Protein backbone atom coordinates (compact mmCIF):
# COMPACT_ATOMS: atom_id res chain seq x y z
CA UNK A 1 0.00 0.00 0.00
CA UNK A 2 1.29 3.46 -0.85
CA UNK A 3 1.36 5.87 2.08
CA UNK A 4 1.63 9.64 2.09
CA UNK A 5 5.08 9.65 3.71
CA UNK A 6 6.34 7.19 1.10
CA UNK A 7 5.20 9.53 -1.66
CA UNK A 8 6.80 12.50 0.11
CA UNK A 9 10.05 10.52 0.45
CA UNK A 10 9.97 9.49 -3.18
CA UNK A 11 9.34 13.09 -4.27
CA UNK A 12 12.15 14.29 -2.02
CA UNK A 13 14.69 11.94 -3.59
CA UNK A 14 13.48 12.69 -7.10
CA UNK A 15 13.73 16.48 -6.66
CA UNK A 16 17.06 16.21 -4.83
CA UNK A 17 18.52 14.02 -7.56
CA UNK A 18 17.43 16.47 -10.27
CA UNK A 19 18.73 19.38 -8.19
CA UNK A 20 22.18 17.83 -7.83
CA UNK A 21 22.26 16.87 -11.51
CA UNK A 22 21.37 20.48 -12.40
CA UNK A 23 24.10 21.81 -10.13
CA UNK A 24 26.63 19.57 -11.89
CA UNK A 25 25.39 20.67 -15.29
CA UNK A 26 25.65 24.37 -14.31
CA UNK A 27 29.38 23.88 -13.79
CA UNK A 28 30.11 21.49 -16.64
CA UNK A 29 27.93 22.58 -19.55
CA UNK A 30 29.85 24.20 -22.40
CA UNK A 31 27.40 26.95 -23.21
CA UNK A 32 26.88 29.63 -20.51
CA UNK A 33 23.24 30.08 -21.54
CA UNK A 34 22.63 26.40 -20.91
CA UNK A 35 24.36 26.83 -17.54
CA UNK A 36 21.93 29.56 -16.55
CA UNK A 37 18.96 27.50 -17.71
CA UNK A 38 20.16 24.57 -15.59
CA UNK A 39 20.58 26.99 -12.68
CA UNK A 40 16.93 28.00 -13.13
CA UNK A 41 15.86 24.37 -13.14
CA UNK A 42 17.93 23.94 -9.98
CA UNK A 43 16.10 26.86 -8.29
CA UNK A 44 12.86 25.27 -9.26
CA UNK A 45 13.75 21.94 -7.67
CA UNK A 46 14.92 23.74 -4.52
CA UNK A 47 11.49 25.39 -4.38
CA UNK A 48 9.89 21.97 -4.67
CA UNK A 49 12.01 20.75 -1.74
CA UNK A 50 10.83 23.74 0.32
CA UNK A 51 7.25 22.76 -0.52
CA UNK A 52 7.83 19.20 0.67
CA UNK A 53 9.29 20.58 3.91
CA UNK A 54 6.07 22.57 4.40
CA UNK A 55 7.64 26.00 3.77
CA UNK A 56 5.24 27.08 1.04
CA UNK A 57 5.91 30.81 1.42
CA UNK A 58 9.66 30.38 0.98
CA UNK A 59 9.08 28.14 -2.04
CA UNK A 60 6.94 30.73 -3.80
CA UNK A 61 9.28 33.60 -2.92
CA UNK A 62 12.22 31.58 -4.24
CA UNK A 63 10.43 31.17 -7.57
CA UNK A 64 9.19 34.79 -7.75
CA UNK A 65 12.45 36.48 -6.75
CA UNK A 66 15.16 34.19 -8.05
CA UNK A 67 13.56 32.49 -11.03
CA UNK A 68 11.17 35.27 -12.03
CA UNK A 69 13.45 38.27 -11.66
CA UNK A 70 17.11 37.62 -10.81
CA UNK A 71 17.66 34.73 -13.21
CA UNK A 72 15.90 36.60 -16.03
CA UNK A 73 18.37 39.46 -15.73
CA UNK A 74 21.18 36.96 -15.42
CA UNK A 75 20.08 35.20 -18.59
CA UNK A 76 19.73 38.58 -20.24
CA UNK A 77 23.34 39.47 -19.46
CA UNK A 78 24.76 36.08 -20.42
CA UNK A 79 22.91 36.13 -23.76
CA UNK A 80 24.11 39.65 -24.53
CA UNK A 81 27.75 39.09 -23.57
CA UNK A 82 30.16 38.21 -26.29
CA UNK A 83 31.84 35.31 -24.53
CA UNK A 84 34.79 33.41 -25.84
CA UNK A 85 34.07 29.88 -24.63
CA UNK A 86 37.67 28.71 -24.99
CA UNK A 87 39.05 31.55 -22.92
CA UNK A 88 36.37 30.92 -20.31
CA UNK A 89 37.72 27.41 -19.73
CA UNK A 90 41.36 28.52 -19.62
CA UNK A 91 41.81 29.07 -15.90
CA UNK A 92 39.93 25.95 -14.84
CA UNK A 93 43.03 24.02 -13.71
CA UNK A 94 44.36 26.99 -11.79
CA UNK A 95 41.14 27.92 -9.99
CA UNK A 96 39.80 24.42 -9.34
CA UNK A 97 41.66 23.98 -5.99
CA UNK A 98 40.40 27.35 -4.68
CA UNK A 99 36.86 26.46 -5.68
CA UNK A 100 37.20 23.06 -4.02
CA UNK A 101 38.43 24.68 -0.77
CA UNK A 102 35.53 27.16 -0.68
CA UNK A 103 33.06 24.39 -1.46
CA UNK A 104 34.57 22.25 1.28
CA UNK A 105 34.28 25.07 3.84
CA UNK A 106 30.63 25.64 2.94
CA UNK A 107 29.96 21.91 3.20
CA UNK A 108 31.59 21.78 6.67
CA UNK A 109 29.50 24.75 7.80
CA UNK A 110 26.35 23.01 6.64
CA UNK A 111 27.32 19.91 8.61
CA UNK A 112 27.98 22.04 11.71
CA UNK A 113 24.58 23.70 11.43
CA UNK A 114 22.76 20.42 11.02
CA UNK A 115 24.65 18.71 13.86
CA UNK A 116 23.94 21.63 16.21
CA UNK A 117 20.29 21.65 15.15
CA UNK A 118 20.01 17.94 15.88
CA UNK A 119 21.89 17.84 19.18
CA UNK A 120 21.38 21.19 20.91
CA UNK A 121 18.96 21.22 23.79
CA UNK A 122 17.59 24.68 23.03
CA UNK A 123 16.70 23.72 19.48
CA UNK A 124 14.67 20.78 20.75
CA UNK A 125 11.47 22.75 21.20
CA UNK A 126 11.81 24.50 17.88
CA UNK A 127 12.50 21.20 16.15
CA UNK A 128 9.32 19.68 17.43
CA UNK A 129 7.18 22.64 16.44
CA UNK A 130 8.83 25.03 13.99
CA UNK A 131 5.63 26.99 13.33
CA UNK A 132 3.06 27.62 16.05
CA UNK A 133 -0.11 25.64 15.53
CA UNK A 134 -3.16 27.33 13.96
CA UNK A 135 -0.91 29.85 12.26
CA UNK A 136 -0.10 29.53 8.57
CA UNK A 137 3.47 29.37 7.39
CA UNK A 138 3.34 32.89 5.95
CA UNK A 139 1.97 34.44 9.14
CA UNK A 140 4.60 32.64 11.22
CA UNK A 141 7.43 34.13 9.15
CA UNK A 142 5.85 37.58 9.35
CA UNK A 143 5.49 37.37 13.12
CA UNK A 144 9.17 36.56 13.59
CA UNK A 145 10.55 38.82 10.86
CA UNK A 146 8.78 42.02 11.86
CA UNK A 147 9.18 41.64 15.65
CA UNK A 148 12.32 39.86 16.86
CA UNK A 149 14.42 40.47 13.76
CA UNK A 150 13.08 43.84 12.63
CA UNK A 151 16.48 45.56 12.95
CA UNK A 152 18.23 42.89 10.91
CA UNK A 153 15.44 43.04 8.35
CA UNK A 154 15.72 46.82 8.03
CA UNK A 155 19.51 46.52 7.92
CA UNK A 156 19.29 44.06 5.01
CA UNK A 157 16.97 46.49 3.23
CA UNK A 158 19.46 49.33 3.76
CA UNK A 159 22.32 47.26 2.36
CA UNK A 160 20.27 46.52 -0.75
CA UNK A 161 19.34 50.19 -1.10
CA UNK A 162 23.01 51.21 -0.91
CA UNK A 163 23.86 48.60 -3.54
CA UNK A 164 21.12 49.92 -5.79
CA UNK A 165 22.20 53.55 -5.42
CA UNK A 166 25.79 52.51 -6.03
CA UNK A 167 24.85 50.73 -9.26
CA UNK A 168 22.93 53.78 -10.47
CA UNK A 169 25.75 56.19 -9.60
CA UNK A 170 28.30 54.00 -11.38
CA UNK A 171 26.33 53.56 -14.58
CA UNK A 172 24.24 56.71 -14.91
CA UNK A 173 25.33 59.14 -17.58
CA UNK A 174 23.46 62.40 -17.75
CA UNK A 175 22.58 63.08 -21.36
CA UNK A 176 21.90 66.78 -21.10
CA UNK A 177 22.62 67.29 -24.80
CA UNK A 178 19.92 64.99 -26.11
CA UNK A 179 16.30 65.81 -26.62
CA UNK A 180 13.75 64.01 -24.53
CA UNK A 181 10.03 63.72 -24.87
CA UNK A 182 8.31 66.20 -22.54
CA UNK A 183 4.81 64.82 -22.25
CA UNK A 184 3.49 67.81 -20.28
CA UNK A 185 4.71 70.21 -22.98
CA UNK A 186 3.08 68.08 -25.65
CA UNK A 187 -0.26 67.98 -23.89
CA UNK A 188 -0.30 71.73 -23.27
CA UNK A 189 0.71 72.60 -26.79
CA UNK A 190 -1.51 74.94 -28.83
CA UNK A 191 -4.05 72.75 -30.52
CA UNK A 192 -4.94 74.71 -33.66
CA UNK A 193 -3.33 73.55 -36.86
CA UNK A 194 -0.41 75.70 -37.86
CA UNK A 195 0.53 76.30 -41.43
CA UNK A 196 3.88 77.58 -42.46
CA UNK A 197 5.40 78.11 -45.82
CA UNK A 198 8.77 76.44 -45.93
CA UNK A 199 11.46 77.96 -48.10
CA UNK A 200 12.81 75.52 -50.63
CA UNK A 201 15.77 73.65 -49.23
CA UNK A 202 15.22 74.75 -45.62
CA UNK A 203 15.62 72.10 -42.96
CA UNK A 204 13.35 71.64 -40.01
CA UNK A 205 16.05 73.19 -37.84
CA UNK A 206 15.76 76.47 -39.75
CA UNK A 207 12.04 76.66 -39.15
CA UNK A 208 12.33 77.15 -35.40
CA UNK A 209 9.90 74.33 -34.69
CA UNK A 210 12.24 72.27 -32.54
CA UNK A 211 12.78 73.06 -28.90
CA UNK A 212 16.25 74.49 -28.27
CA UNK A 213 18.69 72.17 -26.60
CA UNK A 214 19.94 72.97 -23.12
CA UNK A 215 23.21 74.91 -23.25
CA UNK A 216 26.27 72.74 -23.59
CA UNK A 217 28.16 72.39 -20.35
CA UNK A 218 31.83 73.26 -20.47
CA UNK A 219 33.73 70.01 -20.38
CA UNK A 220 37.42 69.32 -19.99
CA UNK A 221 38.72 68.49 -23.45
CA UNK A 222 40.62 65.39 -22.38
CA UNK A 223 37.48 63.48 -21.41
CA UNK A 224 35.97 62.14 -24.60
CA UNK A 225 32.31 61.37 -24.07
CA UNK A 226 30.31 59.47 -26.63
CA UNK A 227 27.65 62.13 -26.93
CA UNK A 228 29.42 65.48 -26.57
CA UNK A 229 31.75 67.32 -28.85
CA UNK A 230 30.02 67.12 -32.21
CA UNK A 231 27.11 69.49 -32.04
CA UNK A 232 27.23 70.06 -35.77
CA UNK A 233 26.05 66.50 -36.23
CA UNK A 234 22.66 67.35 -34.70
CA UNK A 235 19.82 68.65 -36.77
CA UNK A 236 19.37 71.89 -34.83
CA UNK A 237 22.58 73.88 -35.08
CA UNK A 238 20.91 77.08 -33.96
CA UNK A 239 17.95 76.73 -31.66
CA UNK A 240 14.98 78.69 -32.94
CA UNK A 241 11.80 79.89 -31.29
CA UNK A 242 10.28 78.21 -28.33
CA UNK A 243 6.80 76.75 -28.09
Amino acid sequence: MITDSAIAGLAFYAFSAVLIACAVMVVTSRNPVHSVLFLILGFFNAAALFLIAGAEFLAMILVIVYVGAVAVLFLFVVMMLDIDFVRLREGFQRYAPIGAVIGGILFLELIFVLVTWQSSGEAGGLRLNPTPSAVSNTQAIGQVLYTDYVLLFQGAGLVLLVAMIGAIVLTHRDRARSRRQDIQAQIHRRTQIEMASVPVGASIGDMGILRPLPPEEPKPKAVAHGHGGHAGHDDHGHGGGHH
Partner: protein
Amino acid sequence: MADFLNTPVGIFALTVAQALALLVPLLIAVAFMTLAERKIMAAMQLRKGPNVVGPFGLLQPFADAGKMLMKETIVPAGASKVLFIMAPMLTFVLAMIAWAVIPVNEGWAIADINVGVLYLFAISSLGVYGIIIAGWASNSKYAFLGALRSAAQMVSYEVSMGFVIVTVLLCVGSLNLTDVVLAQKNLWFFIPLFPMFIIFFISTLAETNRAPFDLPEGESELVAGFFVEYSAMTFALFFLGEYANMFLMSALTSTLFLGGWLPPFDVAPLNWVPGPIWFILKICFCMFVFVWVRATLPRYRYDQLMRLGWKVFLPFSLVWLVLTAFALKIFGWLPA
Protein backbone atom coordinates in the same frame (compact mmCIF):
# COMPACT_ATOMS: atom_id res chain seq x y z
CA MET B 1 -16.14 4.96 -3.96
CA ALA B 2 -15.40 7.32 -1.06
CA ASP B 3 -12.74 4.87 0.16
CA PHE B 4 -11.11 4.76 -3.24
CA LEU B 5 -11.02 8.57 -3.48
CA ASN B 6 -9.03 8.75 -0.23
CA THR B 7 -6.22 6.50 -1.46
CA PRO B 8 -3.28 8.16 -3.27
CA VAL B 9 -4.38 6.55 -6.56
CA GLY B 10 -7.91 7.86 -6.04
CA ILE B 11 -6.67 11.38 -5.26
CA PHE B 12 -4.51 11.24 -8.37
CA ALA B 13 -7.43 10.11 -10.54
CA LEU B 14 -9.70 12.78 -9.07
CA THR B 15 -7.13 15.51 -9.68
CA VAL B 16 -6.67 14.42 -13.28
CA ALA B 17 -10.44 14.48 -13.78
CA GLN B 18 -10.69 17.96 -12.22
CA ALA B 19 -7.83 19.24 -14.36
CA LEU B 20 -9.50 17.94 -17.51
CA ALA B 21 -12.82 19.46 -16.46
CA LEU B 22 -11.07 22.84 -16.27
CA LEU B 23 -8.63 22.63 -19.18
CA VAL B 24 -10.93 21.27 -21.88
CA PRO B 25 -13.42 24.16 -21.56
CA LEU B 26 -10.45 26.55 -21.32
CA LEU B 27 -8.97 25.34 -24.60
CA ILE B 28 -12.34 25.51 -26.33
CA ALA B 29 -12.73 29.04 -24.95
CA VAL B 30 -9.29 29.92 -26.32
CA ALA B 31 -10.29 28.57 -29.74
CA PHE B 32 -13.44 30.65 -29.83
CA MET B 33 -11.65 33.66 -28.38
CA THR B 34 -9.49 33.85 -31.50
CA LEU B 35 -12.71 34.03 -33.51
CA ALA B 36 -14.38 36.46 -31.09
CA GLU B 37 -11.40 38.78 -31.27
CA ARG B 38 -11.53 38.89 -35.05
CA LYS B 39 -15.29 39.40 -35.01
CA ILE B 40 -15.19 42.18 -32.39
CA MET B 41 -12.35 43.98 -34.12
CA ALA B 42 -14.17 43.62 -37.42
CA ALA B 43 -17.31 45.15 -35.91
CA MET B 44 -15.30 48.03 -34.48
CA GLN B 45 -13.71 48.65 -37.87
CA LEU B 46 -17.01 48.26 -39.79
CA ARG B 47 -15.98 44.99 -41.44
CA LYS B 48 -17.62 41.58 -41.32
CA GLY B 49 -14.77 39.45 -40.05
CA PRO B 50 -14.52 35.70 -40.71
CA ASN B 51 -17.92 34.58 -42.03
CA VAL B 52 -17.21 31.82 -44.53
CA VAL B 53 -16.36 28.66 -42.57
CA GLY B 54 -19.54 27.40 -40.90
CA PRO B 55 -22.51 29.52 -39.79
CA PHE B 56 -21.30 33.06 -38.86
CA GLY B 57 -17.75 31.75 -39.30
CA LEU B 58 -18.11 29.65 -36.13
CA LEU B 59 -15.93 26.84 -37.48
CA GLN B 60 -13.06 29.19 -38.36
CA PRO B 61 -10.93 28.24 -35.28
CA PHE B 62 -11.11 24.57 -36.28
CA ALA B 63 -10.14 25.36 -39.85
CA ASP B 64 -7.16 27.33 -38.50
CA ALA B 65 -6.21 24.48 -36.15
CA GLY B 66 -6.42 21.99 -39.03
CA LYS B 67 -4.16 24.15 -41.14
CA MET B 68 -1.62 24.44 -38.32
CA LEU B 69 -1.58 20.67 -37.80
CA MET B 70 -1.06 19.94 -41.50
CA LYS B 71 1.85 22.31 -41.94
CA GLU B 72 5.48 21.40 -41.55
CA THR B 73 7.40 22.41 -38.43
CA ILE B 74 10.57 24.09 -39.65
CA VAL B 75 13.59 24.19 -37.36
CA PRO B 76 16.17 26.75 -38.58
CA ALA B 77 19.62 25.34 -39.33
CA GLY B 78 21.41 27.51 -36.77
CA ALA B 79 18.84 26.99 -34.02
CA SER B 80 19.50 25.32 -30.70
CA LYS B 81 17.13 22.42 -31.41
CA VAL B 82 16.13 21.25 -27.94
CA LEU B 83 15.48 24.75 -26.63
CA PHE B 84 13.74 25.76 -29.85
CA ILE B 85 11.19 22.98 -29.44
CA MET B 86 11.01 23.42 -25.66
CA ALA B 87 10.12 27.13 -25.66
CA PRO B 88 6.56 26.91 -27.06
CA MET B 89 5.84 23.88 -24.87
CA LEU B 90 7.01 25.85 -21.83
CA THR B 91 4.79 28.81 -22.70
CA PHE B 92 1.80 26.56 -23.16
CA VAL B 93 2.34 24.47 -20.03
CA LEU B 94 2.87 27.55 -17.84
CA ALA B 95 -0.35 29.07 -19.15
CA MET B 96 -2.16 25.85 -18.20
CA ILE B 97 -0.74 25.01 -14.75
CA ALA B 98 -1.54 28.44 -13.31
CA TRP B 99 -5.25 27.55 -13.48
CA ALA B 100 -4.78 24.98 -10.71
CA VAL B 101 -5.42 27.55 -7.98
CA ILE B 102 -8.18 29.68 -9.57
CA PRO B 103 -11.41 29.25 -7.58
CA VAL B 104 -14.33 29.01 -10.01
CA ASN B 105 -16.84 28.81 -7.17
CA GLU B 106 -16.65 28.46 -3.40
CA GLY B 107 -14.48 25.37 -2.87
CA TRP B 108 -14.16 24.75 -6.63
CA ALA B 109 -10.41 25.10 -6.98
CA ILE B 110 -8.26 22.14 -8.00
CA ALA B 111 -5.73 23.13 -5.32
CA ASP B 112 -7.05 25.57 -2.71
CA ILE B 113 -3.60 26.40 -1.34
CA ASN B 114 -2.69 28.98 1.30
CA VAL B 115 -0.35 30.92 -0.96
CA GLY B 116 -2.54 30.90 -4.07
CA VAL B 117 -1.87 34.53 -5.00
CA LEU B 118 1.88 34.01 -4.74
CA TYR B 119 1.63 30.85 -6.84
CA LEU B 120 -0.15 32.76 -9.60
CA PHE B 121 2.36 35.59 -9.41
CA ALA B 122 5.24 33.11 -9.59
CA ILE B 123 3.82 31.27 -12.60
CA SER B 124 3.01 34.48 -14.46
CA SER B 125 6.54 35.75 -13.86
CA LEU B 126 7.87 32.51 -15.39
CA GLY B 127 6.05 33.20 -18.64
CA VAL B 128 8.97 35.33 -19.77
CA TYR B 129 11.18 32.23 -20.11
CA GLY B 130 9.19 30.77 -22.98
CA ILE B 131 9.70 34.01 -24.88
CA ILE B 132 13.33 34.62 -24.00
CA ILE B 133 14.32 31.01 -24.75
CA ALA B 134 12.43 31.13 -28.07
CA GLY B 135 14.22 34.34 -29.01
CA TRP B 136 17.63 33.01 -28.16
CA ALA B 137 17.20 29.51 -29.58
CA SER B 138 15.95 30.83 -32.94
CA ASN B 139 19.39 32.33 -33.59
CA SER B 140 17.82 35.26 -35.43
CA LYS B 141 18.22 39.01 -34.89
CA TYR B 142 14.53 39.84 -34.92
CA ALA B 143 13.59 37.02 -32.59
CA PHE B 144 16.37 37.96 -30.19
CA LEU B 145 15.41 41.65 -30.15
CA GLY B 146 11.81 40.68 -29.49
CA ALA B 147 12.86 38.42 -26.63
CA LEU B 148 15.00 41.14 -25.03
CA ARG B 149 12.18 43.67 -25.24
CA SER B 150 9.76 41.21 -23.77
CA ALA B 151 12.04 40.30 -20.87
CA ALA B 152 12.59 43.95 -19.93
CA GLN B 153 8.91 44.74 -20.29
CA MET B 154 7.61 41.83 -18.24
CA VAL B 155 10.11 42.32 -15.42
CA SER B 156 9.27 46.06 -15.27
CA TYR B 157 5.52 45.66 -15.06
CA GLU B 158 5.72 42.79 -12.60
CA VAL B 159 7.01 45.22 -9.97
CA SER B 160 3.96 47.47 -10.00
CA MET B 161 1.70 44.42 -10.32
CA GLY B 162 3.30 43.09 -7.15
CA PHE B 163 2.48 46.30 -5.28
CA VAL B 164 -1.13 46.21 -6.49
CA ILE B 165 -1.47 42.61 -5.30
CA VAL B 166 0.04 43.52 -1.91
CA THR B 167 -2.52 46.34 -1.56
CA VAL B 168 -5.36 43.91 -2.20
CA LEU B 169 -3.87 41.40 0.21
CA LEU B 170 -3.68 44.08 2.93
CA CYS B 171 -7.45 44.45 2.63
CA VAL B 172 -7.95 40.66 2.72
CA GLY B 173 -5.45 39.47 5.30
CA SER B 174 -4.82 36.17 3.53
CA LEU B 175 -2.97 34.86 0.49
CA ASN B 176 -5.70 32.35 -0.28
CA LEU B 177 -7.70 33.17 -3.40
CA THR B 178 -10.96 31.87 -1.93
CA ASP B 179 -10.48 34.24 1.03
CA VAL B 180 -9.76 37.07 -1.41
CA VAL B 181 -13.12 36.53 -3.08
CA LEU B 182 -15.04 36.06 0.18
CA ALA B 183 -13.58 39.34 1.51
CA GLN B 184 -15.43 41.11 -1.33
CA LYS B 185 -18.83 39.85 -0.19
CA ASN B 186 -20.06 43.38 0.64
CA LEU B 187 -17.95 45.53 -1.65
CA TRP B 188 -15.92 44.53 -4.69
CA PHE B 189 -12.37 45.80 -4.39
CA PHE B 190 -12.46 47.73 -7.64
CA ILE B 191 -14.53 50.44 -5.93
CA PRO B 192 -12.29 51.32 -2.97
CA LEU B 193 -9.09 50.51 -4.88
CA PHE B 194 -10.15 51.94 -8.24
CA PRO B 195 -6.77 53.45 -9.27
CA MET B 196 -5.06 50.16 -8.42
CA PHE B 197 -7.60 48.29 -10.53
CA ILE B 198 -6.71 50.45 -13.53
CA ILE B 199 -2.97 50.03 -12.93
CA PHE B 200 -3.41 46.28 -12.55
CA PHE B 201 -5.38 45.96 -15.77
CA ILE B 202 -2.86 47.99 -17.77
CA SER B 203 -0.04 45.94 -16.25
CA THR B 204 -1.76 42.72 -17.31
CA LEU B 205 -1.83 44.09 -20.86
CA ALA B 206 1.94 44.56 -20.64
CA GLU B 207 2.43 41.20 -18.93
CA THR B 208 0.60 39.32 -21.69
CA ASN B 209 2.38 41.33 -24.42
CA ARG B 210 -0.94 42.59 -25.75
CA ALA B 211 -1.62 45.80 -27.64
CA PRO B 212 -0.75 48.61 -26.96
CA PHE B 213 2.30 46.95 -25.39
CA ASP B 214 2.89 44.27 -28.05
CA LEU B 215 6.42 45.49 -28.76
CA PRO B 216 7.95 42.01 -28.48
CA GLU B 217 6.14 41.05 -31.66
CA GLY B 218 5.91 44.53 -33.23
CA GLU B 219 5.35 43.35 -36.79
CA SER B 220 6.22 46.68 -38.39
CA GLU B 221 9.74 46.67 -36.99
CA LEU B 222 10.59 43.12 -35.85
CA VAL B 223 8.64 41.11 -38.46
CA ALA B 224 6.92 39.04 -35.77
CA GLY B 225 9.33 39.36 -32.88
CA PHE B 226 10.26 36.36 -30.80
CA PHE B 227 8.23 33.78 -32.79
CA VAL B 228 9.33 34.86 -36.25
CA GLU B 229 11.06 31.51 -36.87
CA TYR B 230 8.20 29.36 -35.62
CA SER B 231 5.77 27.58 -37.86
CA ALA B 232 2.90 25.10 -37.70
CA MET B 233 2.28 23.45 -34.32
CA THR B 234 5.08 25.27 -32.47
CA PHE B 235 3.53 28.58 -33.56
CA ALA B 236 0.09 27.34 -32.58
CA LEU B 237 1.36 26.53 -29.08
CA PHE B 238 2.63 30.11 -28.65
CA PHE B 239 -0.69 31.38 -29.89
CA LEU B 240 -2.70 29.16 -27.54
CA GLY B 241 -0.38 30.01 -24.65
CA GLU B 242 -0.80 33.74 -25.24
CA TYR B 243 -4.58 33.52 -25.29
CA ALA B 244 -4.69 31.19 -22.29
CA ASN B 245 -2.53 33.75 -20.47
CA MET B 246 -5.02 36.47 -21.36
CA PHE B 247 -7.80 34.32 -19.89
CA LEU B 248 -5.67 33.73 -16.81
CA MET B 249 -5.02 37.44 -16.30
CA SER B 250 -8.73 38.15 -16.79
CA ALA B 251 -9.52 35.50 -14.19
CA LEU B 252 -6.97 37.04 -11.82
CA THR B 253 -8.43 40.53 -12.34
CA SER B 254 -11.93 39.15 -11.70
CA THR B 255 -10.77 37.36 -8.56
CA LEU B 256 -8.82 40.28 -7.10
CA PHE B 257 -11.10 43.19 -8.02
CA LEU B 258 -14.43 42.04 -9.46
CA GLY B 259 -15.53 39.66 -6.73
CA GLY B 260 -14.77 36.32 -8.44
CA TRP B 261 -17.90 34.16 -8.47
CA LEU B 262 -19.99 36.58 -6.36
CA PRO B 263 -23.03 38.29 -7.91
CA PRO B 264 -22.97 42.11 -8.04
CA PHE B 265 -25.72 42.36 -5.41
CA ASP B 266 -26.80 39.55 -3.13
CA VAL B 267 -30.51 39.92 -4.05
CA ALA B 268 -33.06 37.50 -5.42
CA PRO B 269 -32.81 37.30 -9.20
CA LEU B 270 -29.06 37.88 -9.22
CA ASN B 271 -28.04 35.24 -6.68
CA TRP B 272 -30.07 32.54 -8.42
CA VAL B 273 -27.43 32.55 -11.14
CA PRO B 274 -24.72 30.02 -10.20
CA GLY B 275 -21.30 31.40 -9.21
CA PRO B 276 -19.31 29.95 -12.13
CA ILE B 277 -21.60 31.77 -14.57
CA TRP B 278 -20.82 35.10 -12.88
CA PHE B 279 -17.13 34.24 -12.96
CA ILE B 280 -17.25 33.41 -16.67
CA LEU B 281 -19.19 36.61 -17.41
CA LYS B 282 -16.55 38.68 -15.59
CA ILE B 283 -13.74 36.93 -17.49
CA CYS B 284 -15.59 37.61 -20.76
CA PHE B 285 -15.93 41.28 -19.83
CA CYS B 286 -12.17 41.54 -19.20
CA MET B 287 -11.41 39.72 -22.45
CA PHE B 288 -13.68 42.12 -24.33
CA VAL B 289 -11.75 45.06 -22.88
CA PHE B 290 -8.50 43.39 -24.01
CA VAL B 291 -9.82 43.30 -27.58
CA TRP B 292 -11.36 46.77 -27.32
CA VAL B 293 -8.01 48.22 -26.25
CA ARG B 294 -6.30 46.47 -29.14
CA ALA B 295 -8.75 47.88 -31.66
CA THR B 296 -8.51 51.39 -30.22
CA LEU B 297 -4.98 52.28 -29.21
CA PRO B 298 -1.78 52.57 -31.24
CA ARG B 299 1.33 50.74 -30.11
CA TYR B 300 3.50 52.42 -27.47
CA ARG B 301 7.03 53.42 -28.24
CA TYR B 302 9.60 51.51 -26.21
CA ASP B 303 10.80 54.46 -24.10
CA GLN B 304 7.20 55.45 -23.39
CA LEU B 305 6.51 51.92 -22.21
CA MET B 306 9.43 51.99 -19.80
CA ARG B 307 8.53 55.49 -18.60
CA LEU B 308 4.97 54.42 -17.86
CA GLY B 309 6.10 51.35 -15.94
CA TRP B 310 8.90 52.82 -13.87
CA LYS B 311 8.10 56.52 -13.55
CA VAL B 312 4.31 56.48 -13.34
CA PHE B 313 2.96 53.14 -12.15
CA LEU B 314 5.70 52.20 -9.71
CA PRO B 315 5.71 55.44 -7.63
CA PHE B 316 1.93 55.69 -7.78
CA SER B 317 1.28 52.12 -6.65
CA LEU B 318 3.90 52.47 -3.92
CA VAL B 319 2.27 55.63 -2.54
CA TRP B 320 -1.19 54.11 -2.79
CA LEU B 321 0.02 51.01 -0.95
CA VAL B 322 1.30 53.13 1.95
CA LEU B 323 -1.91 55.20 1.96
CA THR B 324 -4.03 52.04 2.05
CA ALA B 325 -1.99 50.65 4.93
CA PHE B 326 -2.40 53.92 6.87
CA ALA B 327 -6.13 54.09 6.20
CA LEU B 328 -6.66 50.50 7.29
CA LYS B 329 -4.65 51.08 10.46
CA ILE B 330 -6.22 54.45 11.41
CA PHE B 331 -9.83 53.42 10.82
CA GLY B 332 -9.24 49.99 12.36
CA TRP B 333 -10.31 48.14 9.20
CA LEU B 334 -7.34 45.78 9.28
CA PRO B 335 -8.58 42.21 8.80
CA ALA B 336 -8.02 40.04 11.83
